[in-house]
């Protein structure tokens, strides 16, 4: 690789994804992590806001931790399209030279990130779940320079069976896409203001601009399971779509939400939006009930960060018991309805 002058690159930048002029939750999560990383590096947090008519969103980004917001506002950026967005973000990177650039691992970020990393010639680590500042190599190797204050990016690979920690020691920015639902937002600082910088690199449509013929929004009234504090999750062991009623009643009594494993989606019992796991969503609620879920690694990869995991399964060898804080070997059909009643009685008494 050609040598870059790494010293020129400063600050922790976040791609502040917005859709329909509404900031996506992932942007706030990234700002939370960026605040922590910038604190360790003694640097500032910059949000890069790209869209059309989006200047009004800057204060919100400030409240969640942005010291500065770089706004690229242009009618070409109204809807997400790879090329104008890649042009906007890579121009910002070339102009403002961030040390770290974080992008959400969303359907937008996983398209934008690789395109930008190829353009600015830096590495990109996908779907990170842990970001830390540390040394590379982690342990000093005689005769080899150990670099300090590097971004160490940890991600699952091989379907969640292994984890790898990646560094990007010789190129800048150090760039990562980050899984949604993993990083913590900060408590918003009401009334906080950020320095706002407007920047427009100019947009000239060429062969790389695609045309949007239609936008079809999938209307769904399903609660986002990634926002739920309590999840009542069912697996194949629930037995049928109808039997999910037991879990829905429990969720109602607790003020929680129903989610499920992949087998349930494959059987057509519940929609894909409710699926937890490697090919579904990563969740970290306060309480996760795993009911009739065997707990394959592809499932546990998406829920093991939950604060409390309660598992009910009739098979005492089910791997879910290896990650559960409280595991009950028993019949869900008998336990769940009684539990629902007890909780209802308890909350009524209060």
């Amino acid at each position, binding site marked *: *690789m050609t040598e870059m002058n790494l010293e020129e690159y400063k600050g922790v930048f976040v791609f502040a994804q917005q859709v329909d002029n509404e900031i996506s939750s992932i942007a706030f999560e990234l700002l939370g992590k960026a605040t922590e990383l910038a604190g360790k590096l003694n640097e500032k947090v910059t949000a890069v806001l790209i869209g059309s008519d989006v200047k009004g969103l800057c204060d919100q980004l400030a409240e969640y931790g942005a010291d500065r917001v770089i706004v690229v506002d242009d009618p070409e950026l109204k809807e997400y*399209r790879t090329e104008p967005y890649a042009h906007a973000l890579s121009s910002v990177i070339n102009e403002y030279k961030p040390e770290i650039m974080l992008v959400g691992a969303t359907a937008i970020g996983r398209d934008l990130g690789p395109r930008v990393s190829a353009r600015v010639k830096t590495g990109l680590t996908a779907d990170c779940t842990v970001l830390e500042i540390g040394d590379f190599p982690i342990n000093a190797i005689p005769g080899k320079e150990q670099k300090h204050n590097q971004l160490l990016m940890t991600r699952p690979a091989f379907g969640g*069976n292994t984890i790898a920690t990646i560094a990007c020691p010789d190129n800048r920015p150090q760039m990562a896409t980050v899984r949604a639902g993993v990083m913590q937002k900060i408590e918003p600082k009401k009334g906080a203001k950020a320095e706002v910088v407007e920047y427009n690199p100019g947009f000239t449509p060429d062969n790389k601009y695609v045309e949007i013929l239609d936008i079809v929004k999938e209307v769904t009234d399903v609660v986002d399971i990634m926002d739920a504090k309590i999840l009542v999750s069912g697996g194949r062991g629930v037995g049928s779509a109808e039997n999910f009623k037991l879990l829905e009643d429990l969720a109602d009594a607790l003020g929680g939400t129903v989610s499920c494993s992949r087998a349930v989606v494959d059987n057509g019992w519940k929609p894909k939006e409710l699926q937890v796991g490697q090919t579904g969503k990563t969740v970290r609620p306060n309480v996760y009930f795993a009911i009739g879920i065997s707990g394959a690694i592809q499932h546990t*990869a998406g829920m093991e960060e939950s604060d409390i995991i309660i598992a009910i399964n009739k098979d005492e060898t089910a791997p879910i018991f290896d990650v559960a*804080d409280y595991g009950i070997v028993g019949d869900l059909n008998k336990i769940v309805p009684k539990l629902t009643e007890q909780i209802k009685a308890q909350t009524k008494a209060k």
Partner: protein
Amino acid sequence: MKIVVCIKQVPDTKGGVKFNPDGTLDRGAMLTIMNPDDKAGLEAALRIKDEYGAEVTVLTMGLPKAEDVLREAMAMGADNGILVTDRVLGGADTWATSTTIAGALRNIDYDLIITGRQAIDGDTAQVGPQISEHLGIPVISYAQDIKIEGDSVIVNRQFEDRHHVLKAKMPCLVTALSELNVPRYMTPGGIFDAFDKDITVWGRKDLKDVDDSDLGLAGSPTKIAKASDKVRKGAGEKVTLDADEAVSYIMDKLVEKHVI
């Protein structure tokens, strides 16, 4: 019309993952398959060939044994196979891999390049969009549906809460989701034909407009600091109880943790 499909031979993580005694992944003991998203991309190309007529070339980068995955693709109906293999290409991250594949693609004519969205071993979804960037052509990722209209492709592009119907002028690159279709099987005739056909093998010297310093492990901006087996949270309590006992056990925990 000329279509190139980029495919990858991957360990089959679905069929059970095997570990060595030291806890590292035993790749030798795991079966290899054509990456599912790539197979869907190949099927999409073959359907375009069936409907409009097209020459379909499959290209892979890997060890010499990755020839198997090209033969499989040709047995399904691909016309040509190209294997990019060279010692100096080993250890490449997505940046160096996409640089390599772009260098190979510069040797051939194409209207449409199809890659899978992501491979099941790395799950990065980066190589397709990065190839398109190196080649200076448009990319449409996460394709649920691909149609041809004159000199353009029309693609349903999936997002979390919507899809866009996008039109791009060819040449362009599309990354395919495994949900796109159900890939066809190899045919007996196809298998015989596939083993009669020559596979083009390219090495470093066949890559066009690529610097040595951008290839392989040395040309990879990202470096592995540490790789390990997933550290799993230890098991908590496990109790076998009848329904009433189980309910009071759970109630105690919920109250103790201030959930209710």
